[in-house]
């Protein structure tokens, strides 16, 4: 039996206390992983933004539309543009439950060429192209509202009043490593344009552009904005990365607060663990005295204490991660994707988060045992043997 094994066995001597400590640690790890996963998912839109995609919108406000002819100018007059498309925010509601929020956008015919990471069958796009009132919807949204391909759907307009009727022609998915929102609803811009009042016709919300070479995107950005600089409606073009950052950055203060909370929770775990170890050491004072009297060095005693703490934190980390995976993958993650897909397009426990949680547990467990370990190592044999716990 090695000394480390003895240390590990020591942890099992007070089963109740060890179980509770592991449980407490595991809950802390679970909470840490949950919070970190939310932060990671939130930042995903920024981190995974396509490098070759740009968005052009009105310079002053996103509520102002661009004239439709801007798209032709971008397509023909700007060098380095591989493809360009446009979208308009419709803001319609699902009449059966107006509180359900999802992005519904009128889009140009070629819009799916701009999003090659989107998983959608060519058949579905073909169907959509031939169906004036067709719609392509995200898998999470379809699941949430129970839509299937072929279903007839009516949305109630808000910005564009009236009832808008659609047929679901296809459902798209997205690989988990992308940040594509799976709860969007795309339909034909021409359908919207035909149905709105005279003053609202031939307007587009924003232009999406893919560039040939991502390293030239700054030049393309500048070229687009310069093109419209003398027009009545000026534009701001930014990379998808910058746009997402600006949009998601609105909540950065909240995220920072969550980050702090996740650290506090680990500190609490350390306190619980440290307390347990300190108690164990206090109880075993006379035992350590005996060990020392038998010839074990202070280093050995310290090793016992630290080894015990590491065993407990290892178990706490494992149990915590074991709880986190099912909780996030089958519970909270799917809920967030369906209900807040615009902000949390893909919620998964990242390996980095899991590894961080696990490493932090071990490191903090080790740290928590340092003080008790030093105290145990300093014990005088005679004192230890004389003292009664």
């Amino acid at each position, binding site marked *: 039996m090695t000394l480390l094994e003895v240390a590990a066995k020591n942890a099992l001597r007070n089963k109740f*206390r060890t179980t509770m400590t592991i449980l407490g640690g595991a809950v802390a790890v679970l909470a840490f992983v949950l919070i970190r996963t939310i932060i990671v998912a939130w930042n995903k839109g920024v981190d995974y933004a396509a490098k070759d995609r740009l968005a052009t919108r009105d310079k002053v406000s996103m509520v102002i539309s661009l004239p439709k002819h801007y798209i032709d100018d971008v397509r023909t007059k700007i060098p380095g543009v591989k493809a360009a498309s446009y979208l308009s925010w419709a803001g319609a509601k699902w009449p059966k439950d107006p509180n359900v929020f999802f992005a519904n956008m009128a889009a140009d015919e070629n819009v799916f060429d701009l999003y090659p990471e989107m998983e959608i069958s060519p058949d579905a796009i073909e169907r959509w192209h031939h169906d004036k009132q067709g719609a392509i919807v995200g898998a999470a949204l379809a699941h949430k509202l129970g839509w299937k391909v072929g279903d007839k759907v009516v949305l109630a307009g808000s910005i564009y009043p009236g009832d808008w009727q659609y047929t679901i022609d296809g459902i798209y998915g997205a690989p988990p490593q992308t940040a594509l929102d799976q709860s969007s609803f795309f339909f034909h811009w021409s359908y919207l344009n035909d149905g709105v009042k005279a003053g609202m016709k031939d307007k587009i919300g924003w232009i999406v552009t893919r560039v040939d070479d991502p390293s030239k995107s700054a030049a393309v950005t500048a070229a687009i904005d310069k093109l419209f600089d003398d027009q009545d409606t000026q534009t701001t073009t930014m990379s998808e990365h910058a746009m997402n950052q600006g949009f998601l950055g609105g909540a950065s203060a909240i995220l920072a607060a969550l980050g702090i909370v996740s650290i506090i929770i680990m500190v609490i775990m350390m306190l619980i663990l440290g307390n347990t170890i300190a108690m164990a050491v206090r109880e075993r004072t006379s035992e350590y005295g005996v060990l020392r009297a038998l010839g074990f060095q202070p280093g050995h005693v310290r090793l016992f204490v630290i080894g015990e703490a590491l065993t407990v934190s290892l178990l706490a980390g494992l149990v915590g991660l074991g709880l986190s995976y099912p909780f996030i993958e089958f519970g909270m993650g799917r809920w967030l994707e369906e209900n807040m897909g615009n902000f949390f397009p893909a919620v998964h426990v990242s390996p980095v988060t899991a590894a961080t949680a696990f490493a932090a547990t071990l490191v903090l467990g080790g740290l928590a045992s340092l003080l008790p370990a030093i105290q145990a190592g300093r014990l005088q044999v005679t004192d230890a043997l004389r003292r009664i716990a």
Partner: protein
Amino acid sequence: MIPIAYNLRNLRARKTTTAAAALGLALVVFVFATARMLTHGIDKAMHQASDPSVAIVLRKGASAELESGIEVPKISIIGTAPGVAAFPNGRQQVVGELVAVVLLDKVGVEGGFSNAQVRGISDDSIAFRPTVKIIEGRAATPGTDEVVIGRAIRGRFKGLELDATFDLSKNRPMKVVGIFADGGSAYESEIWADVDRVRATFGRGTIVSSVRVRLDSPAAFDGFAAALDANRQLDVSAMREETFLLKSSQGTSIFLSAMGFMIAFFFSIGAMIGAMITMHATIAQRQREIGTLRALGFTRFQVLTSFLFESILLSLIGGAIGAAASLLMSTQEISTMNWATFAEIVFKFEPSVGIIVSAMVAAALMGILGGFWPAIRAARINPVQAMRGA
């Protein structure tokens, strides 16, 4: 009854354990209370502005001011509906306002930008909201490029400072001539400019986003709303301002409340387990003491209550430290995006007596739950065995 001094002395005798357990609890209560203060702060910002006798009119189908559009001539028609109150000067208490968001550069973040909400206000808008006070500078002159800005948004974006200017559209600088306050409401995160000026900038033709009316009494709402509904030409619907504000803050506050609840939940479990371990260890160490207490004639029930009391005391000490620390947060301001308007909103960690009391109650509860089982164990100790040695 076992003297309380016994429990107090014990907590003092085991200083390190007590401190660690109390600190753990303090952190839990701190996070618990700040999470609640955050939600409360947002709620306050969102609902502060609500007046029970005010109704907001939007185009049918619209649920936010940004989505809505009402033609200007309809404003006076809405004003003739039954139940609308009048200003002392006899004018109807009706204001049509145009809401938009503008992209502005943030201060302190290199290359950072965000949306700020602009409200095009009419001549009566400030008089309509008696809680709004200009705290610095002066009110803007109607029909000019002067604006007043909310206290909370001041200094957060470039150009949003008294006497500074910012561009609403190319080569048309807007001058900030005053700062207003409204008791922490969401208006404090807005820029108020002349309605015609905003309309021109945003190419909004002859429309406003919303029409607010003050009614003679909150009870007048039903009649007012029915009258608007009956007039199909208007194509608008009325909502109580309270309901409207509640709805428009739902997304943001549901998410934050859910996060706050989740955090508080896990933290409480952690703290409870911490308290349980501590109490459990205390009792294991004090077998002999407890045996003596029982031998002296204290009943099982007395031992149980004494230990439960000790656990609650420990929790309350931790809770008080945590609650006090959380109060320090109340000076902090925090901004987030209001997902209903896509604009930034600034709010405070808003403490309330209810939050502090509930945090302390939660702490006591954790003490009871954590201490109950160990206390039962203590009560079950057989005095003879315990005194013989453990």
